[in-house]
Protein backbone atom coordinates (compact mmCIF):
# COMPACT_ATOMS: atom_id res chain seq x y z
CA UNK A 1 0.00 0.00 0.00
CA UNK A 2 1.32 3.42 -0.95
CA UNK A 3 0.20 6.83 0.27
CA UNK A 4 0.40 10.15 -1.52
CA UNK A 5 0.19 13.08 0.87
CA UNK A 6 -0.66 16.37 -0.74
CA UNK A 7 -0.18 19.53 1.32
CA UNK A 8 -3.17 21.82 1.05
CA UNK A 9 -5.25 24.28 3.04
CA UNK A 10 -6.97 21.49 4.93
CA UNK A 11 -3.60 20.35 6.29
CA UNK A 12 -3.12 17.54 3.82
CA UNK A 13 -5.10 15.22 1.63
CA UNK A 14 -4.06 11.58 1.55
CA UNK A 15 -4.53 9.24 -1.35
CA UNK A 16 -3.88 5.57 -0.79
CA UNK A 17 -3.19 3.17 -3.59
CA UNK A 18 -2.74 -0.55 -3.75
CA UNK A 19 0.62 -1.44 -5.26
CA UNK A 20 -0.78 -4.82 -6.35
CA UNK A 21 -3.63 -3.20 -8.27
CA UNK A 22 -2.48 -1.88 -11.64
CA UNK A 23 -5.47 0.41 -11.99
CA UNK A 24 -4.85 1.95 -8.61
CA UNK A 25 -1.17 2.39 -9.43
CA UNK A 26 -2.02 4.01 -12.75
CA UNK A 27 -4.29 6.45 -10.98
CA UNK A 28 -1.53 7.25 -8.48
CA UNK A 29 0.92 7.77 -11.33
CA UNK A 30 -1.51 10.10 -13.07
CA UNK A 31 -1.88 12.10 -9.86
CA UNK A 32 1.88 12.23 -9.48
CA UNK A 33 2.27 13.63 -12.99
CA UNK A 34 -0.49 16.16 -12.53
CA UNK A 35 0.87 17.47 -9.28
CA UNK A 36 4.49 17.65 -10.36
CA UNK A 37 3.28 19.28 -13.58
CA UNK A 38 1.69 21.98 -11.45
CA UNK A 39 4.98 22.63 -9.71
CA UNK A 40 4.63 20.40 -6.64
CA UNK A 41 7.79 18.67 -5.49
CA UNK A 42 7.50 15.00 -4.67
CA UNK A 43 9.47 13.76 -1.70
CA UNK A 44 9.81 10.16 -0.60
CA UNK A 45 9.48 10.46 3.16
CA UNK A 46 11.95 8.68 5.39
CA UNK A 47 10.56 6.73 8.34
CA UNK A 48 12.78 8.17 11.04
CA UNK A 49 12.15 11.84 10.23
CA UNK A 50 15.33 11.94 8.19
CA UNK A 51 15.78 14.08 5.10
CA UNK A 52 13.92 11.78 2.73
CA UNK A 53 14.52 11.79 -1.00
CA UNK A 54 13.43 14.05 -3.83
CA UNK A 55 11.76 12.04 -6.59
CA UNK A 56 11.22 13.24 -10.12
CA UNK A 57 9.57 10.09 -11.43
CA UNK A 58 6.70 8.08 -10.05
CA UNK A 59 7.86 5.07 -8.08
CA UNK A 60 5.09 2.76 -6.81
CA UNK A 61 7.49 1.22 -4.33
CA UNK A 62 7.77 4.45 -2.35
CA UNK A 63 5.61 3.99 0.70
CA UNK A 64 4.86 7.64 1.45
CA UNK A 65 5.21 10.44 -1.06
CA UNK A 66 4.80 14.00 0.14
CA UNK A 67 3.79 16.65 -2.38
CA UNK A 68 4.98 20.16 -1.51
CA UNK A 69 3.56 23.15 -3.40
CA UNK A 70 5.93 25.49 -5.22
CA UNK A 71 7.94 27.74 -2.92
CA UNK A 72 7.79 31.50 -2.86
CA UNK A 73 9.93 34.12 -1.15
CA UNK A 74 8.37 36.11 1.68
Amino acid at each position, binding site marked *: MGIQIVMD*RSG*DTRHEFDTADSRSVALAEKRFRELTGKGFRA*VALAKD*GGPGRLIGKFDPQVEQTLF*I*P*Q*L*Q*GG
Partner: protein
Amino acid sequence: MERVVQILRALLRRALGENGREPPALVDVAIESAAQPRLWVEFSNGYRTSAPLLPEDCFSFCERHSAWDLASLRRALLSEARFAYTRMLQDQSDMRERRRRAWVTEQMRRLGHGLAQSLRPRRDALRFAGFGGGRTFLDEGRSEAHERGMRLLKENLSPAQLQQYHKYGYFEVIGGRSGKRYRIRHGRSMNIDQLDKNGRRICGWCFFPEGSLVTGDVMLAQKTALELFELEALKIANKMW
Protein backbone atom coordinates in the same frame (compact mmCIF):
# COMPACT_ATOMS: atom_id res chain seq x y z
CA MET B 1 -22.70 89.89 38.86
CA GLU B 2 -25.52 92.27 38.06
CA ARG B 3 -28.93 90.72 37.58
CA VAL B 4 -29.27 92.09 34.04
CA VAL B 5 -25.97 90.50 33.06
CA GLN B 6 -27.20 87.17 34.45
CA ILE B 7 -30.36 87.48 32.34
CA LEU B 8 -28.32 88.42 29.30
CA ARG B 9 -26.03 85.41 29.72
CA ALA B 10 -28.99 83.11 30.19
CA LEU B 11 -30.40 84.33 26.87
CA LEU B 12 -27.06 83.81 25.13
CA ARG B 13 -26.76 80.29 26.55
CA ARG B 14 -30.27 79.52 25.36
CA ALA B 15 -29.35 80.71 21.87
CA LEU B 16 -26.25 78.53 21.87
CA GLY B 17 -28.26 75.55 23.07
CA GLU B 18 -30.92 76.06 20.39
CA ASN B 19 -28.43 76.53 17.56
CA GLY B 20 -26.07 73.73 18.59
CA ARG B 21 -23.36 73.05 16.05
CA GLU B 22 -23.41 76.28 14.06
CA PRO B 23 -23.81 79.11 16.50
CA PRO B 24 -25.02 82.31 14.79
CA ALA B 25 -23.36 85.68 15.25
CA LEU B 26 -24.80 88.06 17.79
CA VAL B 27 -26.48 90.95 16.00
CA ASP B 28 -28.24 93.11 18.52
CA VAL B 29 -29.61 93.55 22.00
CA ALA B 30 -32.84 95.43 22.49
CA ILE B 31 -34.98 96.53 25.39
CA GLU B 32 -38.68 96.43 24.71
CA SER B 33 -40.33 99.19 26.67
CA ALA B 34 -43.79 98.12 27.65
CA ALA B 35 -45.81 97.58 30.79
CA GLN B 36 -43.55 94.58 31.37
CA PRO B 37 -40.21 95.42 29.73
CA ARG B 38 -38.28 92.55 28.07
CA LEU B 39 -34.68 92.16 27.11
CA TRP B 40 -34.27 90.81 23.57
CA VAL B 41 -31.23 89.31 21.93
CA GLU B 42 -31.07 88.89 18.15
CA PHE B 43 -28.79 86.67 16.06
CA SER B 44 -27.61 86.59 12.46
CA ASN B 45 -29.79 83.60 11.55
CA GLY B 46 -32.94 85.47 12.59
CA TYR B 47 -33.19 83.73 15.94
CA ARG B 48 -34.55 86.02 18.68
CA THR B 49 -35.06 85.31 22.31
CA SER B 50 -36.17 87.40 25.25
CA ALA B 51 -36.71 87.49 29.01
CA PRO B 52 -38.60 89.87 31.30
CA LEU B 53 -36.50 92.71 32.67
CA LEU B 54 -37.33 94.70 35.77
CA PRO B 55 -35.94 98.18 36.43
CA GLU B 56 -34.30 97.00 39.66
CA ASP B 57 -32.38 94.38 37.63
CA CYS B 58 -30.58 97.20 35.87
CA PHE B 59 -29.66 99.68 38.63
CA SER B 60 -26.18 98.55 39.49
CA PHE B 61 -25.36 97.89 35.81
CA CYS B 62 -26.54 101.39 34.87
CA GLU B 63 -24.44 102.82 37.67
CA ARG B 64 -21.32 100.95 36.60
CA HIS B 65 -21.73 102.04 32.99
CA SER B 66 -23.23 105.49 33.71
CA ALA B 67 -26.03 104.56 31.36
CA TRP B 68 -29.03 106.59 32.30
CA ASP B 69 -31.06 106.37 29.09
CA LEU B 70 -32.29 103.45 26.99
CA ALA B 71 -29.85 104.06 24.13
CA SER B 72 -26.77 104.05 26.33
CA LEU B 73 -28.10 101.10 28.33
CA ARG B 74 -28.63 99.19 25.07
CA ARG B 75 -25.09 100.00 23.91
CA ALA B 76 -23.63 98.89 27.24
CA LEU B 77 -25.67 95.68 27.20
CA LEU B 78 -24.64 94.96 23.57
CA SER B 79 -21.00 95.42 24.50
CA GLU B 80 -21.43 93.14 27.55
CA ALA B 81 -23.30 90.59 25.41
CA ARG B 82 -20.59 90.54 22.73
CA PHE B 83 -17.89 89.98 25.31
CA ALA B 84 -19.85 87.22 27.07
CA TYR B 85 -20.92 85.56 23.80
CA THR B 86 -17.33 85.48 22.49
CA ARG B 87 -16.25 83.77 25.72
CA MET B 88 -19.09 81.25 25.44
CA LEU B 89 -18.20 80.42 21.84
CA GLN B 90 -14.59 79.94 22.83
CA ASP B 91 -15.59 77.67 25.72
CA GLN B 92 -17.85 75.68 23.42
CA SER B 93 -15.06 75.30 20.89
CA ASP B 94 -12.64 74.18 23.61
CA MET B 95 -15.18 71.68 24.87
CA ARG B 96 -15.62 70.22 21.37
CA GLU B 97 -11.86 70.00 20.94
CA ARG B 98 -11.57 68.17 24.28
CA ARG B 99 -14.35 65.77 23.23
CA ARG B 100 -12.68 65.16 19.88
CA ARG B 101 -9.37 64.43 21.59
CA ALA B 102 -11.08 62.14 24.08
CA TRP B 103 -12.79 60.33 21.21
CA VAL B 104 -9.54 59.89 19.29
CA THR B 105 -7.78 58.72 22.45
CA GLU B 106 -10.55 56.20 23.08
CA GLN B 107 -10.44 54.94 19.49
CA MET B 108 -6.67 54.58 19.65
CA ARG B 109 -6.99 52.74 22.95
CA ARG B 110 -9.54 50.36 21.43
CA LEU B 111 -7.42 49.90 18.32
CA GLY B 112 -4.37 49.17 20.45
CA HIS B 113 -6.39 46.75 22.53
CA GLY B 114 -7.69 45.02 19.40
CA LEU B 115 -4.19 44.80 18.00
CA ALA B 116 -2.83 43.45 21.26
CA GLN B 117 -5.65 40.88 21.32
CA SER B 118 -4.92 39.77 17.78
CA LEU B 119 -1.22 39.40 18.54
CA ARG B 120 -1.73 37.71 21.89
CA PRO B 121 -1.12 33.98 21.94
CA ARG B 122 -4.41 32.12 22.12
CA ARG B 123 -5.15 29.42 24.62
CA ASP B 124 -5.32 26.80 21.96
CA ALA B 125 -1.87 27.66 20.67
CA LEU B 126 0.92 25.17 20.81
CA ARG B 127 2.06 24.20 24.24
CA PHE B 128 5.69 23.56 24.85
CA ALA B 129 6.92 21.77 27.92
CA GLY B 130 9.66 24.33 28.41
CA PHE B 131 7.11 27.09 28.93
CA GLY B 132 5.13 25.19 31.53
CA GLY B 133 2.00 23.13 31.01
CA GLY B 134 -0.48 25.98 31.25
CA ARG B 135 1.36 28.51 29.14
CA THR B 136 0.80 28.91 25.47
CA PHE B 137 3.24 29.80 22.77
CA LEU B 138 2.46 31.59 19.54
CA ASP B 139 -0.79 32.14 17.85
CA GLU B 140 -2.64 29.36 16.09
CA GLY B 141 -6.26 28.36 15.94
CA ARG B 142 -7.05 24.79 16.86
CA SER B 143 -8.62 23.93 13.60
CA GLU B 144 -8.66 20.45 12.25
CA ALA B 145 -6.39 21.57 9.42
CA HIS B 146 -3.87 22.97 11.88
CA GLU B 147 -3.84 19.79 13.90
CA ARG B 148 -3.39 17.70 10.78
CA GLY B 149 -0.51 19.91 9.70
CA MET B 150 1.17 19.68 13.09
CA ARG B 151 0.75 15.91 13.12
CA LEU B 152 2.35 15.61 9.69
CA LEU B 153 5.24 17.81 10.79
CA LYS B 154 5.88 15.85 13.98
CA GLU B 155 5.70 12.55 12.16
CA ASN B 156 8.50 13.75 9.91
CA LEU B 157 10.88 15.27 12.42
CA SER B 158 13.80 13.26 13.67
CA PRO B 159 13.67 12.40 17.40
CA ALA B 160 16.24 15.13 18.13
CA GLN B 161 14.31 17.72 16.13
CA LEU B 162 11.06 16.75 17.81
CA GLN B 163 12.58 17.05 21.25
CA GLN B 164 14.03 20.45 20.36
CA TYR B 165 10.71 21.59 18.99
CA HIS B 166 8.78 20.51 22.07
CA LYS B 167 11.27 22.20 24.35
CA TYR B 168 12.03 25.43 22.53
CA GLY B 169 9.47 25.89 19.78
CA TYR B 170 12.06 25.48 17.04
CA PHE B 171 14.19 22.78 15.52
CA GLU B 172 17.46 22.75 13.63
CA VAL B 173 18.10 21.47 10.14
CA ILE B 174 21.37 20.85 8.30
CA GLY B 175 21.40 22.17 4.76
CA GLY B 176 21.56 19.18 2.39
CA ARG B 177 23.95 20.88 -0.02
CA SER B 178 26.04 23.27 2.08
CA GLY B 179 25.99 21.57 5.47
CA LYS B 180 25.02 24.90 7.03
CA ARG B 181 22.88 24.99 10.14
CA TYR B 182 19.41 26.47 10.04
CA ARG B 183 16.89 27.00 12.79
CA ILE B 184 13.22 26.77 11.85
CA ARG B 185 11.09 28.53 14.41
CA HIS B 186 7.37 27.88 14.83
CA GLY B 187 5.71 30.11 12.27
CA ARG B 188 4.80 30.47 8.65
CA SER B 189 7.08 33.23 7.45
CA MET B 190 10.32 34.99 8.45
CA ASN B 191 10.96 32.02 10.74
CA ILE B 192 14.23 30.61 9.41
CA ASP B 193 17.57 31.62 10.90
CA GLN B 194 20.93 30.64 9.52
CA LEU B 195 23.34 29.88 12.36
CA ASP B 196 27.10 29.91 12.68
CA LYS B 197 29.05 27.06 14.22
CA ASN B 198 28.40 28.46 17.69
CA GLY B 199 24.65 28.58 17.13
CA ARG B 200 24.56 32.37 16.72
CA ARG B 201 22.25 33.84 14.12
CA ILE B 202 23.99 35.00 10.98
CA CYS B 203 20.94 35.99 8.97
CA GLY B 204 17.34 35.08 8.35
CA TRP B 205 15.59 33.56 5.35
CA CYS B 206 12.01 33.77 4.31
CA PHE B 207 10.35 31.29 1.98
CA PHE B 208 7.24 29.17 2.22
CA PRO B 209 5.02 27.07 -0.02
CA GLU B 210 2.26 28.71 -2.01
CA GLY B 211 -1.37 28.31 -1.03
CA SER B 212 -1.90 29.62 2.52
CA LEU B 213 -0.92 26.36 4.15
CA VAL B 214 -1.15 25.68 7.86
CA THR B 215 1.90 26.14 10.07
CA GLY B 216 2.85 22.47 10.33
CA ASP B 217 2.85 22.09 6.55
CA VAL B 218 4.86 25.25 6.05
CA MET B 219 7.52 24.19 8.56
CA LEU B 220 7.75 20.71 7.06
CA ALA B 221 8.08 22.19 3.57
CA GLN B 222 10.86 24.48 4.84
CA LYS B 223 12.68 21.60 6.52
CA THR B 224 12.37 19.38 3.44
CA ALA B 225 13.46 22.18 1.13
CA LEU B 226 16.58 22.94 3.16
CA GLU B 227 17.47 19.27 3.42
CA LEU B 228 16.74 18.26 -0.16
CA PHE B 229 16.91 21.31 -2.42
CA GLU B 230 18.62 23.93 -0.30
CA LEU B 231 20.14 26.06 -3.03
CA GLU B 232 16.95 26.34 -5.04
CA ALA B 233 15.01 27.26 -1.94
CA LEU B 234 17.50 29.94 -0.94
CA LYS B 235 17.47 31.33 -4.46
CA ILE B 236 13.73 31.91 -4.10
CA ALA B 237 13.94 33.07 -0.48
CA ASN B 238 14.37 36.60 0.78
CA LYS B 239 17.38 37.13 2.97
CA MET B 240 17.03 39.15 6.17
CA TRP B 241 19.86 40.58 8.22
